[in-house]
């Protein structure tokens, strides 16, 4: 569906094609006939494509800037440290694609082959896809409305040739809008193992994260757990801990207890994390002894445990590489 008119009632609405704002819309006839409400054939196509992907993990947060992309990248790095584990990282933040920079892949381009788009490989067992690879300049802005963003996400899920993959990690933009609805809807038949939700300790972040959790419940997306990022800062000079984002309402721990959701772990704020991301290097390699590295590894381990104790449902064939 191309650009919808302002005031579009939505293609699934009873008013689809019949509302006042529908006049003049090129899709009016389609919607009025009820065909707009028919399931998108891409859902089945994506289900087929996902047969070679064992586990699908969404990384979410209602709040921006809490470290989703940083976490997604390091989850990918951590899982790929085992050379027998095939990892794929998909960046569906269409307006602000940070993953290429964080993975040290800025300037790379996507290639087409007979079997679809080829991901860009960081390692033999770690492939990445992002709209960032489709932009020719770092200044290019992706000024797209929802329907066009949704089309891109559909292509990413249907047309990228991931090959045999143990973990597909999907990094998302902040919010609860088109990108989030689309990825859940397009993967409806393929099944998402669960969502990892990122937050920082302060109430302003938790407010948005509660909405994200509500979104997950609404769309029946299982929640693997919550990660509290930037949780405490150790001064490099005096080594004392302080809170940059004070947990005035009890932080993620209180929220998780309240909502009965697992707290996967807390990652302290290490200034080397930001620097590593800027350089496109794995923080685990730059600072292997940092408490933040230990925290990340423990969280990654818990995610792996969740995935193996909740085996993927229908639509998955045994992969050549078993995790």
């Amino acid at each position, binding site marked *: 569906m191309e650009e919808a008119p*302002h005031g579009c009632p939505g293609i699934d609405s009873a008013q689809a094609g019949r509302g006042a704002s529908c006049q003049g819309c090129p899709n009016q006839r389609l919607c009025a006939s009820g065909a707009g409400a028919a399931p998108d054939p891409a859902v089945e196509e994506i289900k087929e494509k996902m047969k070679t992907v064992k586990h699908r993990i969404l990384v979410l947060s209602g709040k921006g800037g809490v470290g989703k992309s940083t976490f997604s990248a390091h989850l990918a790095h951590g899982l790929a440290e085992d050379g027998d584990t095939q990892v794929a990282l998909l960046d569906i933040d269409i307006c602000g694609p940070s993953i290429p920079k964080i993975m040290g892949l800025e300037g790379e381009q996507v290639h087409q082959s007979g079997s679809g788009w080829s991901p860009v490989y960081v390692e033999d067992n770690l492939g990445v896809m992002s709209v960032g690879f489709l932009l020719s300049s770092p200044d290019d802005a*992706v000024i797209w409305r929802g329907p066009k963003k949704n089309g891109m996400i559909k292509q990413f899920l249907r047309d990228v040739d991931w090959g045999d993959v143990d973990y597909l990690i999907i990094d998302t933009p902040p919010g609860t809008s*088109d990108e989030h609805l689309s990825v859940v809807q397009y993967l409806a038949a393929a099944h998402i193992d669960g969502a990892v939700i990122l937050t920082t300790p302060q109430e302003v972040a938790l407010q948005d994260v509660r909405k994200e959790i*509500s979104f997950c419940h609404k769309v029946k997306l299982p929640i693997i757990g919550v990660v509290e990022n930037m949780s405490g800062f150790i001064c490099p000079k005096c080594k004392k801990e302080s809170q940059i984002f004070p947990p005035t309402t009890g932080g993620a721990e209180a929220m998780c207890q309240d909502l009965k959701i697992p707290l996967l772990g807390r990652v302290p704020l290490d200034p080397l994390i930001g620097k590593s991301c800027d350089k496109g290097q794995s923080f685990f390699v730059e600072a292997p002894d940092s408490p933040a590295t230990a925290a990340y590894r423990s969280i990654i381990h818990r995610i792996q445990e969740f995935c193996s104790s909740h085996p993927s449902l229908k639509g998955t064939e045994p992969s050549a590489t078993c995790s």
Partner: protein
Amino acid sequence: MEAVAEPGNLAGVRNIILVLSGKGGVGKSTISTELALALRHQGKKVGILDVDLCGPSIPHMLRAEGKAVHQCDQGWVPVFVDQEKTISLMSVGFLLENPDEAVVWRGPKKHALIKQFVSDVAWGELDYLVVDTPPGTSDEHMATVEALRPYRPLGALVVTTPQAVSVGDVRRELTFCRKTGLQIIGVIENMSGFACPHCAECTNVFSRGGGEELAQLAGVPFLVFCQVSAYFCLFTREGLVSVRMPQCT
């Protein structure tokens, strides 16, 4: 949901400033709030329009949560956050029955509400209307710029942190401003450094250099926003331009 443009509702607003960033979590809402409070401190009448529909933070920052929006002949009455009625605010946060409820809307519906926020809110006489936006360059931003265009906004303050990852996103926001004809008033660098409360050592927790690089790229003034002790301050190279003692945490 079609809103008929009511020129009356923004006719009394002298200056409109948008606060933008391609990147999330850089401090747009904090800076929008601090800017409004600093302007109020200078004796101005200020309104804040929060067009972040998925993550409306301004009501919390101004301790205005739970307040109700009333109707009048001209449309919605914005919520006054203070007794003296010097700061008014409109946010989707006031329209939600349950604050934890997610606004799970696709673009067209978000677009429609933003149009209403611009045309159907009785702002009255304001010296400044500060518009806080979500991160990105999508429906909310296009709707806001389109709806505000007839009222000729002063321009945009673009916020970044020092990190290259932030600059990477915010460069695209600068392109958005150029393409939509929005003047860039300045680039604000936030979270430049954190002073340890125990030993006062300042650490660059989010790297360094990004804001200045971005300002140079755009050829616009570079401003640094930071908290020094209890004061919120905005600096240019020439020195302090604004300082405020916060009344809320």
